[in-house]
């Protein structure tokens, strides 16, 4: 039997966590800047976006968290055959604990029965790690930090929905997604990003919805019908006038990203993973050659 490939990525993973917590992706910064430009100068909305942008810059310069709620770390790990997922899990855990000790992450894992904080961001189903074996001879890891305020306003609808007149079609999807934005008001730290899943079960709905948040804010959905839906919801959500922090204004949502999963005949779920403006995501690429790690790169 071949010996499993062994290497230590904990330091590289620590750097991935540091980047995710302290550096907001450029596409998000650009979207915030566009939002600021369209708000009335001197308005509460404009000032909120100005403070957000200043904060983003300071966090990057000081290498301190953009937001104190560093959220649930969600790792999506792609790996080639022969790499031990148990080894990678251990190294991710090590990196997360280290990142907590270095104050890149707030200790966020709380025992749901005793209320005790584990102190190192490790606990039952914490952090979240999903593994995907693939053909490529490299490891590719994305990390999202999903904060609690935006998680609390994330929601799942079961269609049809009589209150909203929402049937099992894209018009129904549009109605419930707009309702989710209305219900959230400023509480999810608007301007937010909406990761939407049509279909799936209650569990996969959220997984697919959160994966949409990994997409670049200005990308275009390859499915033209979904692309049109994304554009329409984005425009209409911004007509609600909720604005940054719910102060009122034009910038309520920065992006809408819709994904799809197969569903049961009986179920039609629409899941909205609301993400705050601090849509923190980072990726790490690790090429392998003869079982050795080549140069690690980040984006």
């Amino acid at each position: 039997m071949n010996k499993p490939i062994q290497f230590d990525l904990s330091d590289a993973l620590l750097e991935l966590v540091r980047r995710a917590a302290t550096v907001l992706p450029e596409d998000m910064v650009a979207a915030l800047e566009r939002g600021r430009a369209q708000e009335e100068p001197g308005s509460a909305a404009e000032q909120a976006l100005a403070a957000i942008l200043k904060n983003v810059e300071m966090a990057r310069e000081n290498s301190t968290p953009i937001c104190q709620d560093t959220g649930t770390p969600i790792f999506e790990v792609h790996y080639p055959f022969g790499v031990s997922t148990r080894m990678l899990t251990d190294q991710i855990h090590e990196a997360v604990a280290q990142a907590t000790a270095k104050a890149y992450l707030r200790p966020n894992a709380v025992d749901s029965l005793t209320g005790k904080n584990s102190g190192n961001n490790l606990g039952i189903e914490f952090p979240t790690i999903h593994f995907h074996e693939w053909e490529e001879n490299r490891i590719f890891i994305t990390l999202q930090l999903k904060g609690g305020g935006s998680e609390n306003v994330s929601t799942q609808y079961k269609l049809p929905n009589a209150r909203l007149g929402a049937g099992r079609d894209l018009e129904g999807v549009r109605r419930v997604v707009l309702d989710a934005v209305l219900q959230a008001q400023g509480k999810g730290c608007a301007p937010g990003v909406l990761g939407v899943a049509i279909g799936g079960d209650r569990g996969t709905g959220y997984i697919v919805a959160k994966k949409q948040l990994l997409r670049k804010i200005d990308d275009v959905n390859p499915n033209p019908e979904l692309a049109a839906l994304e554009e329409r919801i984005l425009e209409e959500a911004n007509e609600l006038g909720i604005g940054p922090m719910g102060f009122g204004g034009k910038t309520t949502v920065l992006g809408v990203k819709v994904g799809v999963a197969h569903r049961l005949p009986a179920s039609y779920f629409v899941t909205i993973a609301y993400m705050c403006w601090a849509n923190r995501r980072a990726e790490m690429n690790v090429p392998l050659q003869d079982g050795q790690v080549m140069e690690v790169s980040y984006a």
Partner: protein
Amino acid sequence: MHRLTVPIPDEEIRALHVGDTVYLNGVIVTGRDAAHKYMIEHFIRNEPTDPEDIALHEKLKVLLNGGVIYHCGPVVRKNDDGSWSFVAAGPTTSIREEVYEAEVIKHFNLKGVIGKGGMGKNTLKACMEQPAVYFHAIGGAATLIAQSVKEVIDVYKLDFGVPEAMWVIRVEDFPVVVTMDSHGQSIHDKVQAESEERFKQLIG
């Protein structure tokens, strides 16, 4: 623009209106979910009996008289000399404390609550009666706000964990916006009502 120092006199609170920008100075205390539940259960709805509770209650009565509670679960760093620093300290969503806040405001004579997302009818009513105001900080602007925290004076209930502990901090020019005032006005109610109207038009 207003520059206020804790403890804040009633007349300065009455002079504030929704939309006003305020820079806060002085000693404030963080408190969020666990702290509110604790204060309600151990000080407010019941008389404190445990000696530790009594001692903490006495300290908080002084700190919070005319004072301000900040809904915040910070990222902190312990320095080599044993002191603490705030690394990141933006507000958390306030509405979760709606079931408690009015009683906390009245019990301690609070003049302000800092948080994000706004609060409901009970808190607004307490703001009118006390008087007090709701200060909205910029959600997620954690590194920026941490710059306003000049000193960590003390920490209580650290057994609740770092985010849930009650941190006594001295702030300088902490930037906030009044979104609920002592005259019964709430930006949150206004934005909610207007967005509901617009929503009805959109979905027909």
